[in-house]
């Protein structure tokens, strides 16, 4: 655990509980997510890993009957504080979703949208669009058809467009909710390669069902089960020498 503490913390989660109506989905989570590293959240379906991820940019604001206690600090911002501007928080903490969800607009407009609503200067938009497409390794594939509908792209290209859209507005943290679960192996490999590139500039938190993926892309891994954080350590430790019996059983494929 020492190595975790020596690096700077991007997100500090303390005593986090989350209830959907009366059902408790997250139980007393304490977690420190280091800056500019990839942190993976793994665990069986329904363990709360996506719920935890969506707490970090307050996506639960949309869902009725959600009650949250505890504290989440993103940098120096207490995200549940009444003075916190949720729009600025979400600009800082970008999100890539499970299924590629490009807007029904052109490729260019998909990226332009986030820049426009966040008030980026008009004359810079074109350059930022191109830069973020390059950063997400999509530019060469789409440079001649920027004005075509985004939904004509393949699933993997769409997901990379969604990543480009997210990094265009210059977030500090990127949350990824099983970004490859709807993609084929080749597209998955491309996204993973991209994630490894992204961690140079961004803090990445990725929820994944695919344990091999966690092993390939992440430095740290948190294992969750039934709303609890069971174990959190360096990925190599979690996969080779977990402290908890439950983690070992999950990694070993005994349940999940």
């Amino acid at each position, binding site marked *: 655990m020492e190595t975790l503490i020596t690096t700077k913390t991007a997100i500090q989660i303390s005593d986090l509980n989350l209830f959907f109506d009366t059902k408790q989905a997250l139980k007393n989570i304490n977690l420190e997510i280091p800056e500019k590293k990839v942190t993976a959240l793994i665990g069986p379906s329904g363990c709360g890993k996506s719920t935890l991820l969506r707490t970090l*940019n307050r*996506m639960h604001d*949309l869902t*009725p009957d959600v009650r949250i206690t505890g504290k989440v600090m993103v940098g120096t911002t207490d995200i549940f504080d009444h003075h916190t501007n949720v*729009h*600025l*928080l*979400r*600009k800082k903490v*970008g*999100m890539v*979703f499970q*299924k590629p*969800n*490009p*807007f*029904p*607009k*052109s490729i260019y407009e998909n990226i332009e*949208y*986030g820049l*426009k*609503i*966040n008030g980026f200067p008009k004359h810079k938009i074109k350059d930022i669009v191109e830069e973020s497409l390059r950063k997400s390794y999509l530019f060469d594939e789409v440079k001649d058809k920027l004005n075509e*509908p*985004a*939904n004509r792209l393949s699933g993997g290209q769409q997901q990379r467009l*969604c990543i480009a*859209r*997210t990094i265009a*507005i210059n977030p500090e943290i990127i949350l990824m909710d099983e970004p490859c679960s709807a993609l084929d192996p080749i597209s998955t490999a491309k996204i993973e390669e991209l994630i490894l590139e992204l961690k140079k500039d961004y803090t990445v938190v990725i929820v994944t069902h695919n344990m091999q993926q966690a092993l390939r892309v992440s430095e740290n891994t948190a294992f969750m089960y039934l709303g609890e954080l069971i174990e959190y350590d360096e990925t190599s430790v979690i996969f080779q020498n977990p402290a908890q019996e439950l983690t070992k059983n999950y990694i070993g494929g005994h349940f999940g």
Partner: protein
Amino acid sequence: MNRTQFRIQSDNGFRFLFQASGVLCIAVLLGIFVMLCYNTITFFTQISPWDFISDSQWNPSSSIKTSVYGLLPLLVSTLLVTMGAMLLAVPLGVGTALFISEYAGESVKRILKPTVEMLAAIPSVVIGFLGIVVISPAISNVFGLPNGLNALNGAILLAIMALPTIITVSEDAIHAVPYSLKEASLGLGASQWQTLRLVMLPAAYPGIIAAVMLGMGRAIGETMTVLMATGNSLAFPKGFFDSIRTITATIAIEMGEVPYQTTHYYALFAIAFVLFLITMLVNILAERVANNIRKFQ
């Protein structure tokens, strides 16, 4: 007769039954169309199409010499009330649809949606009645007019009639926008209004266009309400405060007393044909617009 034979025969029987109902429907619709065309053509053998289009008066009389069959006053009347109705109903309807699907809580929604749908069940004659006893006096009071039976009255009533369609269909269209798009937009830091305006509404556009066109179709073809509420004056309409007479009202008023196979009789078919053309044009246009937008979805 054994079982297999019976099954084959009943199969053929049902096939014939459905075929017959299909053919019957198409035959009836085609028949109406042919009748409309035939009578319209007959009209144009007696009155020149140019006179029909350019004359600014609709004044049928028993002698063909003194009769004038100008489409314009009726057409302008129809377009005036329809456009007026749309000007009122589209913002109101789309706004209500947005409210129901995006802002209203579950309980409000549960009451509001069926209520709006029930509004569609009010017979047009009741709406016309409402126009005569409530809205018309209100208009004459507010604007200081001697008579409130005018185009504005008709437009308000037609707006009321078109609203349920516009609200229901738009609400469905907005509701059908995938939740993931809303998430994507909010996830980028957009506010709810930005999300609505820049993502949800454009994505729901084809549906909203369809809603507006359906509402417009209802307004253009509506007869009883405008017949009761717009005063039915044959003077050329100059604005919303003038009494007007729409194509539909003209047909309804005159068809009952016109002698068969006369020029006047054919003239009524000719204006009905114009009405048909307008409705068809509206539909084709709507389909075009919707298809253009759908390319991106």
